[in-house]
Structure formats: C-alpha cells, structure tokens
C-alpha cells in the first residue's frame, strides 16, 4: 500500500494542485481545508506524513502539529508557507519539521521532503 500524504491548506487552488501533483509523484493524497477538518476526518497510518500550511485561519499549522503530538499520534511533518520572514522561520523551527517549503516550491523539493519524511517513519 502506498503511504498517504495528508495535505492541510486553506487555499483551495493549492489543495487541488497538490492533489494532482502528489499522485503523479507516486503517493496517495488526502486534502483538508483546515486543522479542524483534519482532526475530524483524517484516517492516519503510521507510515503517512503531513504537508501542512503554517498560516491558516482558526488553528494554524504549528498549533495543529503540537495538538497531534500531544494526542500521541506524531507524524513526520513538512511545513509549507507563502511567508518567507524571520518570524515564520522561527515559528516553523519550533516543531522540528522534516522540511519547510516556501511557496512557490519545485516538485523536486517536495519529492525530497516527502522521501526524507517517509524514511523517518520506517
């Protein structure tokens, strides 16, 4: 069975784009428009990984990852953001992600990050 990349991003166009690109890279994909939707509907396997946008209305990506870890279901996490500033970088580093991708990011960067994330699960 292929591992699933759980994409959480409030931007609809980004979700659609990643739901085309990620399968084309050889993985399954599931997308959520918010952290809440992820907690309500996501079906997580231990060899999956997360691709989470940092700045989202409601619960942001960092808070979502902390909450997931607190509930004992930590997954390797890739962060993504359209903000490239010092504050965002510090915020990102606080949860020790596998990688942080700055939009627009190249498919090779995404593929590298996913490979690293999946290796850390096995």
């Amino acid at each position, binding site marked *: 069975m292929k591992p699933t990349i759980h994409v959480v991003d409030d*931007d609809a166009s*980004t979700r659609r784009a990643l739901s*085309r*690109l990620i399968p084309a890279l050889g993985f399954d994909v599931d997308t959520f428009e918010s952290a809440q939707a992820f907690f309500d509907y996501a079906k997580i396997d231990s060899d999956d990984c997360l691709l989470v946008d940092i*700045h989202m209305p409601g619960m942001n990506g960092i808070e979502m990852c902390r909450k997931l870890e607190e509930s004992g279901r930590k997954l390797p996490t890739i962060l*993504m953001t*359209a*903000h490239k500033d010092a504050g965002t970088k510090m915020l990102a580093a606080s949860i020790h992600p596998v990688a942080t991708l700055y*939009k627009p990011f190249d498919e090779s960067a995404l593929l590298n990050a996913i490979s690293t994330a999946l290796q850390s699960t096995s």
Partner: protein
Amino acid sequence: MVSGGRLKKKVSSISRSPRRPVRELQRFETVLAGALSAIARVSAHEIDREIELWLGEICLTLDLDRSVLALLNRGVTHRWSREGIPTVPYGTTGMSVSPWTTRKVLAGEELVWSSISDLPNEARDYKQWVRKHGPKAQVALPLRVGNSIVGGITFGKFRSGRKWPSLVIRRLRLVAQVFAAALERKRIETELLSVRSELADASRSTMMGELAASIAHEVNQPLGAILSNAQAARRLLAAPASGVDKANDALNDIVEDAKRAGEVVTRVRALFKGDRTARLPIDPAGLLAEAESLLRSEAAIRMISLRVDAAPSLPPVLGDRVQLLQCVMNLAINAFDSIVSADSSLRETMLKANQQDSKWVRISVTDTGGGIDPAIADRMFDPFVSSKSDGMGMGLLIARSIVTSHGGRISAASNSAGGATVSFTLPVCPANAPTAP
C-alpha cells in the same frame, strides 16, 4: 514670557548712594524669583534661550559684566556679556582658558575673589591671564546634577573689583542649581524625543515592510499553485491514457491562478492610484490645515516648526481629499527627514497654497533641509530611488502618481537659500473657474 523682573533692566543702576547694596539685593531677589519660575515653566527646547536671557538679567541686576556657563565635554554653552566686554566663543573649554579654575570647580569647589590679590600663588598662570584680559572680580560655581558635577558657571566684573556678600553667593548657588536641573531636564527630554522619533521611523518602515510582506504572500500563494499544477500537468501528459483530463483541469487552474496573481498587482496599483470617481471640490486652505493638524505632533517630536501659508480666497480644486492629504503628508515627512538628516540649524517646513492662474492652484512644501542631491535629481520620482539610507523610495513615487492621476504636475527644486521645495498643481474645480463652459 517677559516678567516684571526682566523689564526692570531698563532702570538705571548707577546710583552711588550707600543704600545701593540693599536695593540691589532686593531687586536681585525679584529677578531671581522671576528666573526660577520661568525656567521651571518653559518647555525643553526653550531652556537654552531662557538661561541666556536670565544670565543677562542677573548680571545687569548685580552690575556684573560677564557670565559664562560651560558643560563638561561641551565647553561653553550659554553666555552673556555687557557691551564692550569680550565674549567667550561657544564650545570653549574651561581648561583652555583657566585650567586652575576649571580643576577647582570640577572638584566641587566654589571660587570667589574680589580682586586679583585674593588669588593664591598656585594660580600664577591664571593670574597672568586675568591681568591680560580677565575680570577684576569673579565667582565660579560648580553645576551639580545629583552627586556629579556636570560643568560650571562664572559671574565676573571686568570694569572694577567688587565685594561678594554671602547672601549674593547663596543666591548664585541657587541659580547654579536651578540651571543645572533645567539643563538636565532638557538633556533627558531631548533623549526621549529622539527615542520617540526613532519609534515613529520604525513604525513607518514597519508599515512599508508589512505592505511588502502581504504583497509577497498574496502573489506567492497563486504562484505556488501554478508551479505545482504545471509540474503535475507535465507528468500527467507523459501518461496520455489516463492523464489528459486531469492535465486539462490543472491547466484551467493555472489560468485562474495567473489571473489571481494579476489581480494582486492591480489592487496594489489601485492602492497607489485610486479611481477617478471620488473627485469632489476641495478647499486648498482646508486641505493644508488638515494636513498640518495630522503632522503637528510629528513636527513637534522632531523639533521642526511647521507653518501653513494659504493665499486668501483660493478657488476649490477637484480631487480626492484622502489621496491629496496623503500626497501632502508624504512630501512633508520627506521634508522633515531632510531637515533631521541635514541637522539644519533652521528647522522649518512650510505648506503653501496659491493660485497659479485661472485653471491651476499650486501647492508646495518647502523645507530648510539639505536640498536635493544632484546625483538623483532627475530620478527622484522613480520607485526605489531614495537619498535616505533606509528609504524605500516610495514616498515621492506615490505623491507623483496621485498628482498625475488628478491631472496635475509635480516638480522639485533646491532653494537658493538652502533646502528644497516640492510643488504640484491641481485643477481648479470647473464650476468655479471663470473659464468654465
């Protein structure tokens, strides 16, 4: 702030009657009361002027000829001398005039002498200097702030020797105390002002920084989706059997996201340009008055005098009030920046409005700053061109874009007397123009 005490300097005091010392002391007490309350009341930037005025007042009342106040590290900062008595240049250090006196005063001693024969032998150099150009009687007192001595003040008589009654010395000591406290207040307030003005600068550049960051975010978001869609489409088309429909969807999204990115740019442009629908008749004098009220505190913080000079009965112009306000304020803030960075001794910004001809009103902002750098004179309205080390070069660009969207023209020139003038024209509201159809 002329008090009764100060006006008394007009009264002649050459009476030789034996009652003179008593009358002199009474007048001195009155002058002192005026000085102390005035110094305590004035705002920080008036303290220097006020101290010099009262130095003169005290000298005249006590029939002295010269008073000099010098601060550690800054030399002479305040002085008064009677006509015909040599002045001491500002900045002169005590050590360069009289090392002996200076060392004594900085050690906290008070030096009081009534004739040169009072001076001790160790002061030989000083006596030489005194014989050549100096006073015939002098008091030198330390200026104290808390436990430290920040400088000294002297009162001297050059035309003859004089006695120094202990009451006079006690009062002069009080003067030294009050002046020292006032100068300390000024130093602290000036420091505060510069901190506040730094804060204002920081918040302005933060605003521009935030604007830039939000534009970057708004554009990066669709660009990210475009890139992912394009790369997905390329992979999908490599497997035509299953991928063509999905690739087609991706391409449609790419088109939408490209439009989205384009709209961000349009919105940014609209922010700086505005649409033409909000054009209403505006009173130029009222516009400048409003700008002045918005800029008043910023000007005060930077110790700049801001004045408005609008010609009487100007016709209304046609425009967008908010945009025109922004334009005037951008130019005024530039003027303030220029004055501050040139550290001009004359710190003035003038907002002017007058009628150029029947069709145009001219509005101008004149400053006493460093003028226009010839190296950027012909590019100064272009984006990202700035004479300021931390400037974004957006202020004049926005001003020009506002003026041209109103149909006017903007230009800038250095003033012959120093500083710069940026002026722009606005069309007279047609209904009021004599040439209107």
